[in-house]
């Protein structure tokens, strides 16, 4: 069976034009998808049933027992952390937030080790952005800063920016100029009209120099700034100023390098200043397919996009204090529920060690690095393959993922819903 207009649950591009051929519960082929998408749809490394660590070994357990024990662990904890959420759908994220409220837990999503600093910058200065179609149809200048879309978001350029024709950009290849800013050459920098090579940690200074030029203070810019020549800085500023519509996309190369949130603040303020001359927008290259959904859900229920602490009875947010890495590094948490993410692979060693020392439960379809730190793992259906639900694209456009076929796996809502019921029952 061929299923059209399938939504890809891999990266923040949330491409919705895939054609997937399936037979029973097996994906035969994926058209239109990138290699990451194909791997996601055809990969077959699922955990077959819930598992529980006893002594040093894993043993098979039932959903009933695993769910009951998960609820007991959470109810028994004084400082539980509910972490992850970027790889599941909105309906499951909603349940997570309500459960955190009831438990007085901390709930955090993967932004905490990803675009958290970008969010902090936005909270200082705002965010002039747009949907991706606005870029596709209008932009004649595209800037990728600290991002390598060809490898990390393989269809970003062909669906939304560089290579796709738009309404006002009839011949994208000829009419769009591409600027790539990075510390090293990448596949993306190779196709750039202008590659700006910055010495590591030098982005803030380069952004400042560009702002100075845009503000007419270019005469104060020295001969080189973080390895970038004055001539190139002027050339880049001129390309931006003469754009009809410019769009900046930034990745973790800017967010997580020296300066962190201040880099993003500087980039946003450059965008704002360019808007006094022409039209410019700026957008983060969000990673997980529904990390933005977790920010949205957390925000409409609690007021904050991540790192929400309910232990005081109200929703409390203070990145650096209520963020997962900081909580775990301080060894504050005494239990952790990981949903749809892999902190074992991405957190600092000290945090992973603490996760291994406390009862950690993972709800995830696959065996991953976190499995090795967990006490229990409950496999679920994969959203976008054998479960459906809402996801938010990196630009905030919500799309409902499709269910291609049914397997025996319960989805995240089914499992979390049962844990939540037990918690509710116990909390009266």
């Amino acid at each position: 069976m061929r299923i059209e207009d399938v939504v890809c649950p891999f990266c923040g591009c949330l491409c919705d034009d895939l054609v997937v051929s399936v037979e029973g519960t097996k994906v035969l082929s994926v058209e239109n998808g990138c290699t990451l998408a194909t791997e996601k749809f055809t990969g077959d490394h699922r955990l077959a049933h819930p598992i529980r660590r006893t002594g040093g070994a894993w043993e098979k357990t039932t959903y009933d027992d695993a769910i009951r024990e998960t609820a007991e662990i959470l109810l028994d904890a004084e400082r539980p952390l509910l972490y992850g959420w970027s790889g599941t759908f909105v309906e499951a994220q909603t349940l997570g937030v309500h459960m955190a409220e009831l438990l007085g837990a901390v709930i955090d999503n993967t932004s905490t080790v990803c675009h958290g600093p970008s969010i902090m910058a936005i909270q200082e200065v705002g965010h002039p952005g747009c949907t991706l179609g606005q870029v596709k149809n209008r932009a004649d200048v595209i800037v990728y800063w600290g991002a390598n879309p060809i490898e990390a978001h393989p269809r970003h350029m062909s669906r939304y920016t560089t290579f796709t024709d738009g309404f006002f950009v009839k011949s994208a290849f000829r009419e769009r100029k591409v600027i790539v800013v990075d510390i090293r050459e990448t596949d993306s920098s190779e196709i750039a009209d202008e590659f700006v090579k910055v010495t590591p940690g030098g982005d803030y200074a380069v952004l400042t120099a560009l702002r100075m030029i845009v503000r007419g203070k270019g005469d104060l810019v020295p001969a080189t700034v973080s390895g970038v020549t004055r001539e190139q800085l002027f050339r880049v500023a001129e390309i931006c100023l003469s754009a009809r519509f410019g769009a900046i996309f930034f990745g973790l190369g800017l967010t997580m390098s020296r300066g962190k949130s201040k880099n993003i603040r500087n980039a946003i303020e450059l965008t704002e200043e360019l808007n006094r001359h022409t039209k410019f927008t700026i957008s983060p290259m969000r990673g997980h397919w529904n990390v933005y959904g977790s920010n949205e859900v957390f925000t409409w229920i609690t007021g904050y996009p991540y790192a929400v602490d309910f232990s005081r009875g109200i929703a409390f947010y203070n990145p650096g204090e209520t963020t997962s890495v900081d909580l775990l590094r301080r060894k504050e948490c005494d239990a952790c529920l990981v949903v749809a993410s892999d902190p074992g692979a991405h957190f600092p060693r000290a945090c992973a060690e603490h996760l291994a020392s406390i009862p950690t439960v993972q709800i995830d379809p696959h065996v991953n690095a976190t499995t090795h730190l967990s006490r229990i793992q409950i496999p679920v259906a994969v959203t976008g393959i054998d479960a459906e639900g809402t996801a938010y694209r990196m630009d905030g456009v919500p799309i409902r993922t499709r269910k291609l076929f049914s397997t025996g796996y319960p989805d995240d809502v089914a499992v979390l819903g049962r844990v939540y019921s037990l918690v509710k029952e116990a909390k009266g």
Partner: protein
Amino acid sequence: MTQGILIKNAYVIDPLSGIRGEIMDIAIRDGRIVEDALPGSEVIDAGGCLTLPGGIDSHSHVCGTKVNFGRYMSPEDMRAGRTSRKGVMHVTSGYSVPTTFGNSYRYSTMGYTTVLEGAMAPLEARHTHEEFTATPHQDMLANTLFDGNWSVMEAVREKDVKRAAAIVAWTLAAVKGFAIKLTNPGGTEAWGWGKDVSHIHDPVPYFEVTPAEIISTMIQANEILRLPHSVHLHCNNLGVPGNFRTTLETMDLAPPAGGDRQTLYLTHVQFHSYGGTTWRDISSKSEEIARSLNSKPQVVIDMGQIMFGRTTTMTADGPMEFKLYMLHHNKWSNHDVELETGSGIIPVYYSRKSLVNCVMWAIGLELALLAKNPWQCLLSTDNPNGAPFVKYPEIIALLMSRRMRENEREEIDPRTEHYVPLFALDRELDWYDIAVMTRAGQAKAMGITRIGKGHLSPGAQADVAIYPLKPDNLDPSVDYQQVMAGFSRTLYTIKRGRVVARDGDVVVEGANSTIWTRSRVPPEYDMGSDPEFTRKFDQYYTVRLRNYPVQDVYLPRGVCIETEAAL
């Protein structure tokens, strides 16, 4: 489920039923108002307290992409209003942009049972509907943005009203929207290039249609589709000194009403009633606007009152927000939506020490006091743009008490009186006027009396608010503090026949409905199978046509108002 409710000794004002303040009983059964209560009904003794149909807000920003971004970018606002879990009530955060449950509880304890979200971008409709579900104590409706819709503008350029109507019909059904919203028509498309339109005959770049043409075409399309509401318009030039001329010209575009509702609804008109040429000589032109309104029964407006203090502005009017940012230099967010519209957000502080803010404050009140017919001027703050909706009771008190206005006069910039007529106005609105301006008028203007909204006659939805106010023992002119306190917190809020809030606390989980419209069109006008429309859709949107419509699962209790299009 109880057997029903019998409210005894209620001081009822029900303008749509012609009841102007009578002590009577109200019987409720199965979510509806009925003639007689069943034996064994729960009895509520209203003790002569003011009893009104549930409040209806016809223009408020509470759910969706830009509202949530207002929260996301404003932890300072989240901290400014937070409550812990209490009974069935979830934790809430936020003052000017509360979380969804925060909005829902605060509206409910003020007696509001129905709220129209002022602006939903069709592409992001799913988000609005998800937040509607998390706003459980109000029935929700979504104004759907068409101000920069490419297909509509092309139809306008071709002078093809029927095609414009067909596009509206398809879109409203696809995104489960309620009404046509135009926000700075043409201006949001121009903002795609960092530009704006400056008057209603200023052509939109590339599309070469004018705001006036868009407005007129959409008014006709709206009537062809027989939609319950009229076109809901945020005029061009919001917040620009001298913009009253644009507003007057726009009002002249409204054709005479055929039925019993308006053909054009102008929202937050305070922001559109400015004289002068710069911020230095801005003045009130409320008298000119009210004169036009009083001569045009086909137009309804809402006030867009501002109140002093902190709030967050948010609108689809992207270019306006950038201009405002250039004044405030606080923080600025913008979010253009491909092929459809734009949006912007900035926080603001309205100060009693700012002459401009004082003039704005006066204008909103003047519009309400100068409009002869309360059905034509509804109470709003364009929540949260002029002020958070929790300020409504204070606005009601100001409208009912000249003394309160005089007291406020002492507090504001003393130059204000030279720029506004407010302090020459003796009028004090009465309870009936307020009932019209906060529920009956909204229900009529939105065309939802037909589904039992805004009134208390048998068959109506049992949405009732009982306030701790005894009109027989109160002089609002003097006792304005009591009026304010009374409208802030109901004794009982009843929604669909169930007590949902008591004495300031929400007491049940809540389960709202989303009201949307579908116009049946002949097959040749079904845009879903129109080759030109679908080709362009798949070519220029970044979402496939098949993934665009909002699935039924997002409206667990959807209420569809169906109409037969005259196509």
